[in-house]
């Protein structure tokens, strides 16, 4: 089976995220009041062939641990959907 995997990588909470700050600032300047804690990360989408949803998620987490995210500075979220 093929699964569509959505990976979201974001700067770890507590780590200064100047990109998030800049975006937060810009949103405020545009008049969007009450916006806080903006974090800018990246989204990665991939098709993964696996026998089950759990296996696809496990593979995706290994990919995150080894390459897609930096364990020192980033957290990640994995969502799996059947293709």
């Amino acid at each position, binding site marked *: 089976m093929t699964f569509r995997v959505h990976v979201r990588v974001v*700067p770890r909470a507590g*780590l*200064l995220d*100047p*990109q998030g700050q*800049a975006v937060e600032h810009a949103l405020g300047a545009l008049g969007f009041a009450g916006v806080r804690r903006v974090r800018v990360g990246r989204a990665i989408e991939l098709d993964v062939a696996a026998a089950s949803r759990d296996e696809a998620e496990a593979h995706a987490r290994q990919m995150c641990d080894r*390459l*897609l995210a*930096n364990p*020192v*500075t980033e957290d990640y979220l994995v969502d799996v959907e059947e293709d």
Partner: protein
Amino acid sequence: MQRVAVLRFPGSNRDVDALTAAQRAGSDAYFVWHRDTDLGGADVVVLPGGFSYGDYLRSGAIARFSPVMQAVQRHAAEGGGVIGICNGFQILCEAGLLPGALVRNARLSFVAKPVDLVVTRTDTVFTCAFEPGDRVRVPVAHGDGRFVADPHTLDRLAGEDCIVVRYLPADDGIEPNPNGSERDIAGICNPAGTVVGLMPHPENAIDPLQGAVGGRGFFKSLAAWPALAGRR
């Protein structure tokens, strides 16, 4: 004569500068392509600056899986010298040869200018020709140069004397920390001082034509390092 392998990744751009600086300081320096798996009998390996693999994903994240990096890991494990400059420092952190990570500069902009450094450890492969407290002015050129690590790691780096060069605090006439690095860290090493990574570019300050010669001491160190016998 010191055998110095300068690695070339797709996107390296200070490779010729590093080679030239090493040669002028008296080393027998040569290039090694990132697909090679043999370091050619190197005493010291230099990972030069640039934008390996376009800095895609994260700076250094993809280069660390280049075939040559397995040889670098073995070389480092055997006590051989390894030096990462700028993008090379980022690759060494991604590869786990040095702790921490280099992330986007605190003020977001790419910085390319001279900075003032103080040399804080002087028995490493890249600083053994300095005296503790020596100050040098060399350029930086990076967008992702802010060194970060968890507080425990930062304390360990300081406690084990693994901070090799620091930026200086802002003061009259001083070019200070340009990127917001934790504890003004510009470069670190492993406890043995055999693996060194730094963000500034000493290879771009070795000739008056470049506007400064503050980087010469680093390459003098590199050339002299094996003379510190018993290390290897």
